[in-house]
């Protein structure tokens, strides 16, 4: 009998005394919700009705002598249920019931009463978030839910946490090396120093924030503590057989808490597990009442210990290793002041431990998901009245004595009025007094970001509670039965016998777990996928893995990239209201700064002007007009530049940046009171940022000393671009390698910091991604001109990050460059967007829009006069250009020069020294449509992964793959062998489904091994690049004319066919894409596809295209 029913039964037997159950149930409120008495209908996980139960205030039950004051359980559950009712969420709420009692009511009826429980354990909170709730629940409300962040225009010293990071990294490597080399101290020391060196190089920019006359304690301490750590390792592990698990993720599905322990020691002779949490800084330390000294990290270690208990590791001991100055002080949890202050008894099942963690977990959940206030402006303001959020109950003894205001961004932005030090004019009633349109705009995007966060926070629970086969077959996010083949350093190679069918692809974040354990049970390790084969998988992990076990790999995906978008969105709300200079009353939307009024559709940007531009021979007419308009831009104004495929968008950007820098070359001084720099370029992806830097350097080499590429050196970064990062400019790597760290490490670091600060003072152009808007290089800097590249691919909150670096009151220039006819922003797809309110017409948002509508597209709709479109393109020859232009750009796109218009495949091959006659297909016109309508074998295999989060339904079409292999084989085989590689490298094959791409790769390899050089990829990964010959495989070919969710967005087709320079071959079933399916929602896409095929037929009549039947080829 499942545990819930058994527990319910057991409860009924012993009436009157509370029992410890620890069992999950589903509940649904019955009747009208009242704060003091909540009546619930309890069900088991699979829906069987258990009966009605109740929750009373103060953990009271009929027949109970007294009630417990300051109990948070009933009030928090009431707020959660009320909020779910308001949000019309009907599915039942999961509760992990820890303690309950079957009470005898006065009328003799037996009423089960729930006393202690954890609300919605499927929503995972991390140990750090629990620590933050324990510090100040109001800070969790302002930073985790609302998303308030530091003002990046105000310089703020960093560097304290780098000391901690260096020690962590060094200690981790030294421990691993010590155990791996069986006690070789020298290798452990070298590993430690390498760890410190690596952290210093990667985080040099944060160290540069602090101005100092000489080396500081932060620089010295990581080196002074080396010997102590090595002695400690030798003393504890000399001659012992144990295994170390480093940086392991562990997760308790029954508590909804996850965490990452620095180190877990498992003695091989079967002794108890030892969980170690390393703490360096004393900021959030806990004061010991008796001895008075301070010990950090109490609650986090307690939460990890609770996770181990709930996973059944009863005997585990938890230790906080404190690094104070040059000494290590291991502090068993029993002596931790937090435990002694609350008189907790860890040996027995002490309920106060559970209360402490349940309070932090439940209040943390209720507040950070927004169920506490929703988007009610009155409740949002009232939340700030009391930092302990008394409305949620909760005992102040389970909170810290004083809130940590010094590190709270809400206090620095004077939104929270509790802070001891007021940074500026206090913002009373921020949410009620914000203009209606600004608040509605903020709430509409905020709700969608929060929905995405909730989906990814419930992923771990989903992984643990769903059987592995279902995850692998239906959703394709898990690969089981993998054997470890070899592990060199941190790169591990797994293989298995049967074919790997999955959605996981390169650069995805995954969780590697031994199959004997559930994901997140102590032994799970995070990593990123480096390569995906048919039978093998290469993953870069954080730690070494034991070889003898079989593993499963689960797709984890990245939520954290959403957090910075939340901060960008909320920073816009706070800064726009704060810069009006009006406080204490309702702000009118007209009083907002000009750029904010433009973004909110209150007033249009000014018409693009014309400023004198320097001679730019390599720009065409429209590019020069766009450059002149950008230079003529007044502060507080906006300009939109649409760059269709191949129109030289990046070279225009390079010219604009260089000219603007030249105009303001002597107007800025590093570290003046108000540090005001000329140009900031933010892009959507790292690849695009590197491209901008490359174009800037090879077009204008004289600008090189003033360009800084934000962020640390990345593995896939071009060498020339890597040299522009601040760490490389100051020669960090060489300086730290040569210096002997143990002797004068701090001095070498200090000189390096000084050099980096000087280079930073003189820099005028900063290039980075939208996510790095609050990075250390940009802290305290405001910019005259901010350019957002690939704006069509950035979501609106991401684009708002660019505004954070405009001078106060947004008195700077903003230029958005992108193309809303190409790929939209990447947003997880199955979440239904909230309804678009009627008033949003003035914002340019239509009914079907959501987070996937980029700001560029919205503003282009709203202000067509402020949009300049580049029309001459330098990539596609005339026929392909006409096809793209007529279908997607109303015929305005034209070839830039005659040479571009007339480039042919034969011309390219002649250039390579080939004059052999080509096959029938390749010598004909450049646009070829191979239609498979009448080819019976050419049907797609149907959607394989229907459930789950990603758009990709993993269809494939073997016949099309075969046709493509035949075509390309025909082209390549007729060429002399030595030139085949170059020709193959110029070929690109695009299809929307990864499964089809793998099938095409196999067909090409079977036909001719040199064809492996041709790039086969999805549309999204082809964005931004181009090839001489492009073959597009449409795949979808079925009777019900289903084109699938990927093709439903016609912009992918525009990107696919506009990658081709000289020859374009489209292989697919024309009728599937043009027939009317009788289904809603795809009519816009159908209209474009009908136009596309009609245009091909028109080109065929002019002899510039040819349509073939696929049967005629094989």
């Amino acid at each position, binding site marked *: 009998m499942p545990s819930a029913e058994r527990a319910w039964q057991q409860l009924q037997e012993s009436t009157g005394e509370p029992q410890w159950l620890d069992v999950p149930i589903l509940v649904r409120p019955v009747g009208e919700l009242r704060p003091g008495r909540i009546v619930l209908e309890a069900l088991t996980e699979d829906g069987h009705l258990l009966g009605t139960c109740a929750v009373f205030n103060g953990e009271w039950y009929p027949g109970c002598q007294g009630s417990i004051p300051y109990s948070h359980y009933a009030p928090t559950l009431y707020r959660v249920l009320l*909020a779910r009712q*308001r*949000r019309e969420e009907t599915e039942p709420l999961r509760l992990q019931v820890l303690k309950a009692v079957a009470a005898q009511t006065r009328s003799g009826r037996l009423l089960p009463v729930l006393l202690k429980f954890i609300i919605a354990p499927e929503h995972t909170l991390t140990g750090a978030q629990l620590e933050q709730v324990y510090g100040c629940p109001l800070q969790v409300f302002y930073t985790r839910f609302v998303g308030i962040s530091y003002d990046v225009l105000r310089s703020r010293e960093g560097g304290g946490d780098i000391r901690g990071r260096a020690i962590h990294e060094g200690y981790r490597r030294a421990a691993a090396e010590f155990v791996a080399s069986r006690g070789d101290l020298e290798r452990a020391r070298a590993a430690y120093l390498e760890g410190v060196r690596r952290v210093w190089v990667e985080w040099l920019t944060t160290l540069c924030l602090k101005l100092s006359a000489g080396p500081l304690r932060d620089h010295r301490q990581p080196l002074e503590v080396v010997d102590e750590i090595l002695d400690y390792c030798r003393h504890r592990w000399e001659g012992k057989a144990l295994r170390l698990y480093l940086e392991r993720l562990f997760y308790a599905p029954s508590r909804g808490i996850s965490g990452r322990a620095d180190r877990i020691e498992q003695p091989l002779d079967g002794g108890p597990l030892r969980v170690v949490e390393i703490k360096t800084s004393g900021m959030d330390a806990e004061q010991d009442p008796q001895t008075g000294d301070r010990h950090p990290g109490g609650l986090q270690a307690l939460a990890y210990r609770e996770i181990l208990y709930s996973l059944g590791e009863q005997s585990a001991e938890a230790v906080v290793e404190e690094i104070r100055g040059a000494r290590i002080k291991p502090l068993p949890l029993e002596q931790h002041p937090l435990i002694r202050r609350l008189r907790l008894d860890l040996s027995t099942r002490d309920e106060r431990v559970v209360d402490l963690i349940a309070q932090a977990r439940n209040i943390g959940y209720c507040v950070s998901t927004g169920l506490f206030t*929703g*988007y*009610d*402006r*009155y*409740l949002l*303001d*009232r939340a700030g*009245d009391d930092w302990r959020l008394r409305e949620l109950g909760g005992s102040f003894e389970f909170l810290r004595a004083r809130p940590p205001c010094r590190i709270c961004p809400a206090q620095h932005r004077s939104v929270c*009025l509790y802070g*001891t*030090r*007021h940074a*500026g*004019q*206090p913002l*009373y*009633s921020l949410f*009620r*007094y914000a203009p*209606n349109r600004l*608040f*509605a705009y903020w*709430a*509409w995007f905020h*709700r969608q970001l929060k929905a995405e966060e909730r989906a990814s926070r419930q992923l771990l629970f989903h992984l643990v509670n769903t059987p592995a086969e279902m995850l692998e077959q239906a959703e394709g996010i898990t690969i089981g039965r993998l054997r470890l083949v070899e592990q060199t350093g941190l790169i591990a190679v797994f293989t298995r016998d049967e074919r790997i069918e999955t959605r996981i692809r390169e650069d995805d974040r995954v969780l590697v777990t031994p199959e004997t354990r559930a994901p997140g049970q102590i032994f799970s390790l995070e990593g990123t996928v480096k390569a995906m084969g048919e039978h093998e998988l290469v993953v870069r992990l954080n730690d070494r893995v034991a070889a003898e076990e079989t593993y499963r790999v689960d797709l984890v995906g990245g939520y954290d990239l959403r957090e910075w978008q939340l901060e960008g969105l909320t920073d816009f709300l706070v800064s726009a209201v704060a810069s009006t*200079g*009006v*406080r*204490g*009353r*309702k702000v009118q939307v007209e009083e907002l700064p000009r750029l904010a009024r433009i973004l909110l559709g209150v007033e249009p940007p000014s018409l693009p002007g014309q400023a004198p531009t320097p001679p730019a021979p390599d720009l065409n007419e429209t590019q020069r007009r766009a450059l002149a308009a950008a230079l003529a831009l007044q502060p507080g104004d906006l300009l939109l530049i649409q760059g269709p495929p191949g129109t030289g968008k990046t070279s225009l950007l390079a010219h604009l940046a260089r000219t603007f820098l030249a105009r303001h070359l002597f107007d800025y001084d590093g570290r003046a009171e108000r540090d005001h720099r000329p140009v900031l370029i933010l892009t959507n992806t790292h690849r695009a940022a590197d491209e901008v830097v490359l174009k800037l350097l090879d077009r204008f080499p004289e600008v090189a000393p003033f360009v800084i590429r934000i962020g640390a050196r990345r593995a896939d970064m071009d060498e020339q671009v890597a040299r522009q990062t601040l760490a490389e400019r100051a020669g960090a790597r060489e300086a730290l390698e040569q210096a002997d760290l143990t002797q004068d490490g701090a001095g070498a670091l200090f000189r390096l910091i000084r050099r980096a600060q000087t280079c930073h003072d003189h820099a005028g152009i900063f290039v980075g991604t939208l996510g790095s808007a609050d990075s250390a290089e940009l802290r305290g800097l405001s910019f005259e001109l901010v350019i957002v590249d690939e704006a069509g691919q950035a979501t609106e909150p991401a684009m708002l990050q660019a505004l954070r670096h405009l001078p106060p009151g947004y008195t700077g220039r903003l230029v958005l460059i992108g193309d809303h006819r190409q790929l939209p922003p990447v947003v997880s797809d199955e979440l239904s967007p909230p309804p678009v*309110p009627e008033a949003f017409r003035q914002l340019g948002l239509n009914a079907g829009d959501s987070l996937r509508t980029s700001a560029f597209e919205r503003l282009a709709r709203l202000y067509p006069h402020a949009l300049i479109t580049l029309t001459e393109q330098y990539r596609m020859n005339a026929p392909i250009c006409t096809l793209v232009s007529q279908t997607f750009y109303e015929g305005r796109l034209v070839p830039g020069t005659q040479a571009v218009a007339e480039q042919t495949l034969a011309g390219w091959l002649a250039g390579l020294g080939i004059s052999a006659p080509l096959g029938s297909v390749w010598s004909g016109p450049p646009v070829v449509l191979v239609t498979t309508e009448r080819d019976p074998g050419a049907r797609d295999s149907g959607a394989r992964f229907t459930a789950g989060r990603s758009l990709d339904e993993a269809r494939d079409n073997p016949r099309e793959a075969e046709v493509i292999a035949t075509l390309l084989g025909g082209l390549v085989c007729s060429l002399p062998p030595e030139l085949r590689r170059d020709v193959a490298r110029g070929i690109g094959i695009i299809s929307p489904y990864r499964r089809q791409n793998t099938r095409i790769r196999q067909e090409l390899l079977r036909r001719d091994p040199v064809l492996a050089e041709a790039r086969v990829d999805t549309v999204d990964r082809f964005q931004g690049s181009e090839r001489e010959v492009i073959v597009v495989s449409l795949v979808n070919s079925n009777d019900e004319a289903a084109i699938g969710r990927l093709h439903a967005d016609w912009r992918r087709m525009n990107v696919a066919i506009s990658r081709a320079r000289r020859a374009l071959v489209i292989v697919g079933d024309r009728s599937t894409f043009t027939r009317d399916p009788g289904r809603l929602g795809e009519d816009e896409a159908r209209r474009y596809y009908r136009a596309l095929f009609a245009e091909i037929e028109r080109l065929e009549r002019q002899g510039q295209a040819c349509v073939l039947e696929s049967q005629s080829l094989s």
Partner: protein
Amino acid sequence: MGQDGGEHLVDPEATGSFVARVNRYRESVGHRRFAGEDPVVYPESKAPAEVAAAAIAAERLGGLLRLDSQAISPAEDLAAAELDAGLRALANWDVRLARWRLAIAAGYAHLAEQQQRVSLARALAQTVRDLLYEPPGRPRVKPEAPVLMLLPALDRLPREELDFYAEEAKRLAELWREASRDDLLWSGWALARTRVSLRDGEPDAALAWLLRIYRRNRARLPADDPLERLVRPAEATFRLLLPLADGEDEAELRKLAEDASPHDLLVATVATLSQVWGTDLLQVSDRFALVLYQQPEPDRERPT
């Protein structure tokens, strides 16, 4: 008006249905507010009961009521009343009550001038709190900072009101700093703390403050020291907390502590010290009280 003057018996059904109608409005508005809208309450029909229910719902929610194309803030007078109550509480050094009333006023106020007056009152609450509960002259504490920083941003309040409160905040802060150096002012401040403790019903705290005042002014008291008789029982109550010195008898101390009365000690202290200092100590203590801005022309009423 009470036309028929007779006893008005409450009709349960009518009340129930009316209250249900009001709750229906409140629930629908609460629902839409939870989703982020800031809705105005529209009466569903012109019927008087309906309009009354909508008006009462709007007032209870602190929202706006739509009556034939005009948006009315029905609770504006409540906001003014709560604001006045909050300011009066501040003048009586009652910070908790003031913050509670001002929070309600902030919920009701919709007119810009009223909203800014409420925000100014909340800044003054912070000032009075620092003035009262921070020891005089404590470093890094500037009681006048919240008010002075806020004033330039209050653009809808009359000039003289802003100047008045700027002067008032500076005066209080200066007085507070002065008190750390001047014994008389310090005694006045401590007396204020005593009166607050007594009002909050904490006799021991009042006794403690009175003993501190006594300790501070001991040198100035004349030889025959009239307060001695009252101070000894007060000290007895605290001496009982400490380990007994030799020669002290527990029972005798306990009897002595019985008649320790903070009120008598307060009156006696004020009388004695006023004589010693030559000025009325109560008046010195009253100088720490916040002076409220009064409208210059008595007849021009604020928008009540």
